[in-house]
């Protein structure tokens, strides 16, 4: 989803991976509750990373759409002036 290219999303993805690693370690030590807590955190960070990436993508697309609209408006203005001259 491009989470690695969005700094904030990449950070939370990293957190999620760290929590996953911790969860595995706790599970290896048969520490059930800490493992579950680590998994909860991993899930929360993964969800946030995904949403931050999606949000960044949506913002980029919105800016592109606005830019295209402005470009079209600008060209229309130029053609209109040419047509009137």
């Amino acid at each position, binding site marked *: 989803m491009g989470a690695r290219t969005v700094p904030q999303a990449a950070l939370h993805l990293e957190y999620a991976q760290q929590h996953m690693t911790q969860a595995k370690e706790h599970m290896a030590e048969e520490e059930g509750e800490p493992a579950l*807590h680590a998994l909860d955190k991993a899930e*929360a960070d993964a969800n946030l990373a995904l949403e931050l990436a999606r949000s960044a993508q949506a913002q980029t697309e919105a800016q592109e759409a606005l830019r295209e609209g402005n470009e079209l408006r600008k060209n229309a203005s130029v053609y209109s002036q040419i047509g009137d001259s």
Partner: protein
Amino acid sequence: MNKLSLATLTLAGIGLTGCAATPPSQQLLSARDAFREAEQSTATQLEPEHVQRAKVALNKAEMAHDDEPQSEQEKHLAYLAERKAQLAMALAERTSAERAKAQAEKEYKSLLVDQKQNAEARANVANREADAAERNAAAARSDAQKNAAELATERQARMEAEKKLSAARERLTSALDKIADLSQVETKDREVVITLNGAVLFEVGKSKLMPSAQEKLREVAAVLKQEQDGRSIVVEGHTDSQGTDQYNLQLSKSRAQAVVDYLISQGVDRNRIKAVGRGEAEPTASNQTPEGRANNRRVEIHLRDES
């Protein structure tokens, strides 16, 4: 029992005081800040359900703090609450961006439709102008061709008229040679003037043609009959200055009329000929000498080209 209860309450009170005094974990502080930020953002309008979830999560963390400050449970739940608040804001930002994108795309399409309509309108105007220009050009071409044709026709007609006129002049010259002794012929522009000597035509003071004059006028009539197409004939009578003006005017008119009557009797078209008396008003020579007066007594036949 009372002492025990009091001691228990005192211990509990100490414990509560200890809880209230224990600051929240860093995770809980971060979670509170994140939730506050989410509450103040557009997430409350755009993602109220997720804000509510974050609130529930924060409440759990607060309860864990109340139960056991700085505990792992407090930190764990606070961590999850912070992430939920951040998730609500991220979702709101995405929703906001998607709406902005949809609006921009809608405006883009609308603008495209407008531009298309404008382009079509301009194209229609251009087409109409082109059609009009083409029609004008065709009309101009047609006019030019018509003018050229008219010019050619006119040139042809002029050539034919000049040819006809030239032939007529030749015929006239040839015919007038026959009456040369009787008359004098002049050509002025589009008018031929035949001047007949009055002494040859009339006796002094009379307006009746002499027999010899009739014979000569017959020749003149023959010429006029040939040349009367497209011409008007004006017969002008002139006198010398002897006698009163009134008398001379009347005499000149009577003599002109006598010539007209004779010419009509010889076949000249009566609709093309008329008599005019000029009296002594237009002398061609001096009235002081007999020769001059003889020249002034005259009849002029004017052939005017009316074509």
